[in-house]
Structure formats: structure tokens, C-alpha cells
């Protein structure tokens, strides 16, 4: 097997002086979807913040495309092609939808490439295209999630980090969001998906890690994890 695109080793992260993540290892291979599932507060979001450079690791290594990125400034990590759609969507509420999308392509100076990406994103999320000049703050939760994902896709990421894309959404939107993730997978995007909705995440992912209180307690192909009886009782409500 080829070297992973993202390789995390012994990653330890402190949050308010206590260790929130305690020496975890995981890999994401090019073209694959890997999911990190676990309960609220298990350390999933903290892990993604470290991969994106918003949080300096206390120890451990994060290698992206063979390069050490642990502790690197967030904007430089984005430049390498690691782009996150953050938890709780966090769209720029005072900006228009068009401006939010433009922010996603902040690092691309080629206008033609930006216009092309925008067409692709708007084809994927037609609701956004109808309301380009509207304030993002006026969108519904599901639409904001689409905008947050569209914004990240505007960067044409080599590795897309999705933090809880289904959180707080109506069931119809949850289905739509996961359909889009599935589409992105089919198109060959490399995705690290963090989710509380373990069932949906395991259906899409190739490989899964279960994280509990800052430790990885289980790992394996997503199908096997879904059939694991402990996971079934703890996360799938069976």
C-alpha cells in the first residue's frame, strides 16, 4: 500500500491544561473517506483543529503528503491543500453567499479557475446559486451547512476535513448532506469525516476509527466497525 496522504502519530492535545487527546494514531489514504466517530467531547473536533493548525499539539506528529505540519501556522496548512468545513458551519454571517464562496477560493488567484470551481459548487448546491447576493446569516441551518461545504470545496482541497456536517440538521437535510459526501467520494475526493451520526458515517466511509475520551479504542474497515457489537450498542443505538 502506498504511503498515506495524512499520517498522524502519537498526537497529544491539551485543552485548558488537561489532555483532551492522548496519543492517537490514524491514517488517511488518497481518494479514501476515513471517519472518526465518537461521543460528544471525545476529542474529535480538537483533533481536526490540530490537523488544520488552529491548535498546537503538545506532542506527536502530523504528516501531510510526507511533510510535517504539526504546529505549522493554519494559513500555511490551508495553502498545502488541507481545508476544513468547521463544526457548527461558521459561515461568515455578515457576508453574502457569493462572498463566502469567494473566501473559500482566497488562495487561488486565477480568476478563470475560481469561476470554474464556483460553477461546479453551484451545480452541486443549486439552492446557493439562487441567492448569491443574500446574507449568509439569513440561510437555514441546512443551507448554511451546504455553504460551509461549498466554501471549503472552492479551495479545491487535496484533503477535505468535515467536522460534524450533519449536526443539528433536520433529517431531510442530513440525508442530503450525506448524499453529497457520497458524491464527493465517488469523484475521488479524500475526506476525513468527523461525525456523531455514526450510522451514516460508517455507511459512506472506507475506514473508521472510534475515539473515546481522547483515545482510539477501535479501528478497522467501516463495514466491520458497523458490525461490531460494542459499536452497535454504544453508537448505533441497537
Amino acid at each position, binding site marked *: 500500500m502506498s504511503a498515506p496522504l495524512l499520517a498522524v502519530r502519537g498526537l497529544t492535545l491539551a485543552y485548558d491544561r488537561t489532555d483532551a487527546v492522548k496519543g492517537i494514531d490514524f491514517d488517511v489514504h488518497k481518494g479514501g473517506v476515513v471517519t472518526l466517530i465518537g461521543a460528544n467531547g471525545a476529542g474529535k473536533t480538537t483533533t481536526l483543529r490540530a490537523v*488544520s*493548525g*488552529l491548535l498546537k499539539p503538545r506532542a506527536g506528529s502530523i504528516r501531510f503528503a510526507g511533510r510535517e505540519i504539526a504546529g505549522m*501556522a*493554519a*494559513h500555511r496548512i*490551508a*495553502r498545502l491543500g488541507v*481545508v*476544513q468545513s*468547521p463544526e457548527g458551519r*461558521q459561515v*461568515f*454571517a*455578515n*457576508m453574502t453567499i457569493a*462572498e463566502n464562496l*469567494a*473566501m*473559500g477560493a*482566497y*488562495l487561488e488567484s486565477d480568476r478563470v479557475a475560481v469561476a470554474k470551481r464556483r460553477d461546479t459548487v453551484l451545480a452541486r448546491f443549486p439552492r446557493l446559486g439562487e441567492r448569491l447576493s443574500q446574507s449568509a446569516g439569513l440561510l437555514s441551518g441546512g443551507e448554511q451547512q451546504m455553504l460551509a461545504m461549498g*466554501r471549503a470545496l472552492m*479551495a479545491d482541497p487535496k484533503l477535505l476535513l468535515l467536522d460534524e456536517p450533519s449536526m443539528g440538521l433536520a433529517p431531510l437535510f442530513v440525508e442530503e448532506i450525506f448524499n453529497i459526501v457520497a458524491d464527493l467520494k465517488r469523484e475521488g475526493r479524500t475526506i476525513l469525516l468527523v461525525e456523531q451520526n455514526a450510522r451514516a458515517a460508517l455507511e459512506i466511509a472506507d475506514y473508521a476509527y472510534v475515539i473515546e475520551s481522547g483515545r482510539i479504542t477501535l479501528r478497522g474497515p467501516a463495514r466491520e466497525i458497523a458490525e461490531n457489537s460494542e459499536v452497535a450498542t454504544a453508537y448505533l443505538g441497537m
Partner: protein
Amino acid sequence: MLAQQLLNGILAGSVYALFALGFTLMFGVLGVINLTYGFYFSTGAFVALHATRYLHMQIWEALPFAAAIAGLIAIVIDELLLGPLRRAKAPELSSLMVTLGATLLLYSLMTAWFTTDIRRFPPTVFDGGAFEIQGLRITLSQILIVAAVVSIVGGLAWLLRRTKLGLAIRALAENDDVAQLMGVNVGGVVHLVSFISGALGGAAGVMIGLNYNAIQPYMGESMMLKGFAVIILGGLGDIRGAVLAGLALGILETLTAGYVASSMKDAVGFLLLVLTLWFRPVGLFGRIAAKRA
């Protein structure tokens, strides 16, 4: 008479607007009330004074020069005082206290150097004289001031609304974490915003120094009080509000001086400030302020 008062009011008001713009930009983007801001106003006036007197610059050269120096000083002060606090994610009160202390120190140093004597621009600066149009008197320096304010405000609006850099500045104002996730070099943008704010304050200092032809170190201190009145009236962090509230304050002050009593002029700002806080604490258009609260 009324027309002349209005003209003078618009003139004073446009400088208030310029001053408040820098103050509100600093707050809106960097999220701190930086009390050293008035110091850049004094700095601008003194730099322009010395540039015209000793470097023999024309006033339209001295204005951008003084603004740039004030902007550079603003970067240094922000980085030295507020940089460490930002990185430590310190509470807002700490930055308020640090800038308060720094303000006292900076004004004392300036006074030790220049004394509190009132200084004036060399008379050659005003060579252009004045025009009379249908009984309205307007000086060349006043025309320069209005032209400069209009182009600076227009330029800033263009930067913030129409350029990629402006987009990054607004993104940083809303959510610095996500701005970084999109690739914005937050440190660089913070420096740029400090520079623009300091330069706006410095430019306003040159203009007020020019209009009243009286320059002394503490001029920035009294301007800060007006600046507070303007940004509270206009809404903290609100660009459009700062411009409109600045103009309103200038006109109201001049009318008060003309029709009530000139001693009441400085009270107008505080009256507006108190009334705003009582009846509309988010300011006339306070949107960002309302969201932050």
C-alpha cells in the same frame, strides 16, 4: 449665516468621521478598544508640522507622509502591546488596561519632548488663501480637507467591499479561526488593519491641526472623547455608522456654537453619547456590536 454654519459643521464632521473610522475599524476587526488611538492623531499633527517646517514639504505631501508614519507607529504599538495578549487569548479588560497605561506614557513622553505649548503651521502652508462664493467663505485648506476625507473614505469603502484583501479583513472581523482555515495570514492582516487605522487617525490629526492651526500633544486626548461619542452613536465596529455619526456630531456642534453658546459645543457629543446609550445602545446601525454582545 446658516449656510456658513452648515459648511463649517460638515467640515468638522468629515474629520470626526475620518477619525472615528480608524477607531471603529480597529475595534471591528481586531476586537479591542485601543485607547492609544488618540495618540496617532497627535502624532499625525506633529509629523505634518515638522515635515512642512523642516523638510519643507507642501501640505498635500505632508498629509500622506504624516499618516504613513502614524500608521507605522500603530503597527509597532499594536504588536508590542496587544500581540502577546491576542496570542494568549487574554480577556478584553487586559487590552483596555494595557492601552490605557500606554496612552499615559506616550502622552507624557510627547509632552516632555514638545512641551504643551501650542504650535502652528508655518504661514506658507496657507498661501492659497480663501474663496468667497455667494457670501460663503471657504479656505483652500478646507477644500483640501474635504477632498482628502471624501477620497479616503471612498478608498476604504472600495478596499473593504471590492477587493480580496477587504474580503479577508471582513472575514477576520467575523471569525479569525475560519479566516485562517481559508488561508488568510491573520498576522499580516492585523498589521495592515493597524496601519490603516493609525493612518486614518494621523490624517485626521493633520486636518484638525490645519483647520484650527493649533497643535499640542494632548489634542488626541480630547479627540478621543469625540471619537467615543461618534462610534457609540454610529455603532461599535460599524463603518457607515461612523461616517454618518461623525458628520452629525460636527454639524450639531457647529450649530450649537452658533445658535446656543460656544461653551456648550463640547457638551453636545456627550449628550448624544448618553442619549444613545439610554435609548439605542447598539448605535444607529449597530449590527456587528449587537452580534458581538
